[in-house]
């Protein structure tokens, strides 16, 4: 299958390096990819998998290093060049146009047969139908994509790659939205394609899958390739060790708040389920503790936070706040009940960038700032006093409360968002990725503020994908995986290794291996 001219592996990645804002996202990565093999790529969030794939796709330009495909250098930073070299990329979001049918989607952007300048769908369709047959599509290609299941959409994406004569198809978390049998069907197709000489680059958090499917597995950590092994040379335990590294931090010495379970919990979650993202989650949150949810991106944590904060309504289950059952229809009702969310996407969901720091802090407590109770006028004096007080309390570094919040650093914006809820009668504060994009110093201050709030009696539920942050911040960690809570860690058990282990394994699973 391989062209005679090329010697060695079909694709050679050599010394690929990329840094963002001084941080190395990819550090001299070497990787060989051969046609007819399934290559697994694993690593924690931020390990550099996406950066590697984006470099191959030509979406990101590498700082150093080279990629050769079939003996020829791949032009950097050119998606067209990557496509011409036969590389195809299927992202989780599947860039399909929902109201186009499968055939139109498969042919989108591909050369089409035209007659008199009009697309001849009949003849253009021949190649598409051949591709569809190769992946075993059984539904009519005239079906709109919006009417297809996720698994069928994946088949459309793969056909789309095949129509362009792709020699390599990279798949990012293909099974994240597929059911068990659908995943099996996809694996069969992947094996088929591989047998036909297509190289597959398979990126997944699901280690069982990777071990079962891939001929070769490459592990990335902190931008470096730390392990590469043929099938059978690695087991799940070894893979987990490679992903988190050997230099595991000693358990944090800081005294953690010992949860007092004898008292009535501030907040209870009972059998909450929503779509396929959250599958029956229950837990209690006690006074004084910082409770954190860990797990991988897509484990259902953000969805759970949204359900609590009224962004969406659960399909099943209920919440109790201070012993009272809640029925929350929307965000406004959640806030009235005393539940507030500091969202993951600070810029798009948190701050009003064009408004001042004071405006952003006061927006949730306008009623308390009225000049005369009962009349809707906001007292400038009270507003100023509250904003200035909170700025001082949280150490928000700003020239003044009239400064536009867009001019502040991410950490100070985040503090302002926490300040928003301090005088709002908040009983439960949910913080989704509280220190994302925040420097270490500000992170420390944000953590202190969160702990102080917890000790003062506000329920704190923090969500973080940053394992280190979980060990630093949390008094108790619940780890979620695929919509379920897979484990609970307290005290000195809260370590990076244990969190990662639980993120990848079921508890039963882990016990089984240990036994």
């Amino acid at each position: 299958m391989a062209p005679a001219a090329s010697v060695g592996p079909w694709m050679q990645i050599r010394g690929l390096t990329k840094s963002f804002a001084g941080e190395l996202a990819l550090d001299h990565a070497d990787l060989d990819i051969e046609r007819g093999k399934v290559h697994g790529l694993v690593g924690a969030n931020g390990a550099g998998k996406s950066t590697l794939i984006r470099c191959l796709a030509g979406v990101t330009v590498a700082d150093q290093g080279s990629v050769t495909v079939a003996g020829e250098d791949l032009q950097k930073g050119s998606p067209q060049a990557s496509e011409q070299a036969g590389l195809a990329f299927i992202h989780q979001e599947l860039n399909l146009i929902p109201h186009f049918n499968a055939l139109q989607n498969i042919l989108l952007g591909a050369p089409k047969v035209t007659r008199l300048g009009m697309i001849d769908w009949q003849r253009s369709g021949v190649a598409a139908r051949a591709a569809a047959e190769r992946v075993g599509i059984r539904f009519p290609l005239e079906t709109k994509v919006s009417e297809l299941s996720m698994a069928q959409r994946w088949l459309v994406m793969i056909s789309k790659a095949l129509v362009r004569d792709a020699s390599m198809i990279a798949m990012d978390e293909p099974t994240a939205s597929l059911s068990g049998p659908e995943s099996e069907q996809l694996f069969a197709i992947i094996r088929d394609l591989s047998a036909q000489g297509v190289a597959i680059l398979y990126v997944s958090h699901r280690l069982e899958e990777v071990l079962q499917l891939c001929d070769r597995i490459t592990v990335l950590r902190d931008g470096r390739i730390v392990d590469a092994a043929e099938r059978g040379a690695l087991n799940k335990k070894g893979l987990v060790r490679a992903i988190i590294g050997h230099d595991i931090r000693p358990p944090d010495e800081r005294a953690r708040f010992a949860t007092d379970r004898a008292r009535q919990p501030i907040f209870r979650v009972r059998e909450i389920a929503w779509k396929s993202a959250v599958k029956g989650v229950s837990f209690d949150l006690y006074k004084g503790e910082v409770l954190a949810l860990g797990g991988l991106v897509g484990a259902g944590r953000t969805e759970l936070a949204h359900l609590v904060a009224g962004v969406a309504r659960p399909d099943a289950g209920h919440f109790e706040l201070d012993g009272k059952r809640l029925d929350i229809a929307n965000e406004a009702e959640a806030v009235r009940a005393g539940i507030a969310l500091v969202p993951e996407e600070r810029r798009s969901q948190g701050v009003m960038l064009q408004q001042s720091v004071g405006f952003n802090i006061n927006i949730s407590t306008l009623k308390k700032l009225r000049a005369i109770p009962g009349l809707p006028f906001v007292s400038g004096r009270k507003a100023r006093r509250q904003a200035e007080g909170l700025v001082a309390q949280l150490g928000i570094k700003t020239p003044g409360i009239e400064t536009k919040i867009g001019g502040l650093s991410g950490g100070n914006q985040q503090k302002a968002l926490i300040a928003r809820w301090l005088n709002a009668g908040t009983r439960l504060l949910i913080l989704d990725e509280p220190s994302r994009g925040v420097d270490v110093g500000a992170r420390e201050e944000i953590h202190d503020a969160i702990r102080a709030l917890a000790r003062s009696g506000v329920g704190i539920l923090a969500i973080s994908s940053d394992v280190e942050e979980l060990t630093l911040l949390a008094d108790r960690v619940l780890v979620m995986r695929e919509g379920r809570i897979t484990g609970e860690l307290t005290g000195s058990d809260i370590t990076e290794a244990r969190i990662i282990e639980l993120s990848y394994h079921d508890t039963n699973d882990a016990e089984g291996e240990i036994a």
Partner: protein
Amino acid sequence: MMAQAGTAAKDAPLRKSSWKRTALIWLSRYGTIVGLLLMVVFFSANAPGIFLSRANFLNILSQASLTAIIASGLTYTLVVGEFDLSIGYVASFVGLIVTGLMAYQGFPIWLSIVCALLLGAAIGAFNGVLVTKVRINAVISTLGIGTMLTGIGFTYSSFPIATGIPRAFTDISLGRLVFGLPNPVIIMVIVLIALWVILNKTDIGQKMQAVGGNLEAARLSGIRVDRIKIFAFATAGFCAALTGTLLSSLLGSGTLAAADGYLLDAFAAVFLGSATLREGEFHISGTLIGVLILAVGFNGLSIFGAPTHFQPIFKGGILVLAVGMSALARRYAASA
């Protein structure tokens, strides 16, 4: 000397670009006000006797007042990040109904006006419900409702209502109750102050700004976003109704489509205003300046005897220019 010249030359490109940038920011903030002043100076110098007179200034203010009222209402919908294309039609429709209530139904003047204003607010609120609850794009829903109103107005009265309107009604806009200023000017001042206070000094105004600033953030802050938007639409409808009522009083009749043209004026004024003093944000005082630019411009055109077909050229040109300036101002604010 040589060395000095050398460093000066080296610094020059940097200094020039930052100078240019400062100038652009300054221009985007104060450009509209400078433009207004330049127009006033130019017209005063070239037509001192006619332009620069108390009578003419009052004339300009009277003309501006109806536009200013409808444009401030429109400002509210833009503040919350929406759009209202129905305001001109609402003004025409309500202007017709208010005269009809007096002429056909025999309502007293005060009751007719109250009904007319409430009708305008109700139409606005209905627009708001269509946009927020039914989730129809604001451009489509307000255009649809506006077009329907034209037809409903025609059904109500296919010819202008000119007889049976009490003299006292036309006196409302012709009278000069305070300081010898035309009544519409006084009404405009009251409306503008009220809308400015609501927008800047009350909870609902702060919430409107939050909704327009970042819808998701506002929602997560516990703001009932839909209600805020409906309030903004209702205000726009109310203001449109007030302009329509004053226009009928001014014309002494209820005429189909009489106020349709205010739509474009209002949009031009509001966008000019958003490029004034602030970076692309919609605000009441900006809107007033936008209205004055239009009024002075129209006045100048007619003083210099420009043919009437110059008016739409001026109006359309200003609208495009205003929206362009507003967009530029926002881009500079974002990059700053």
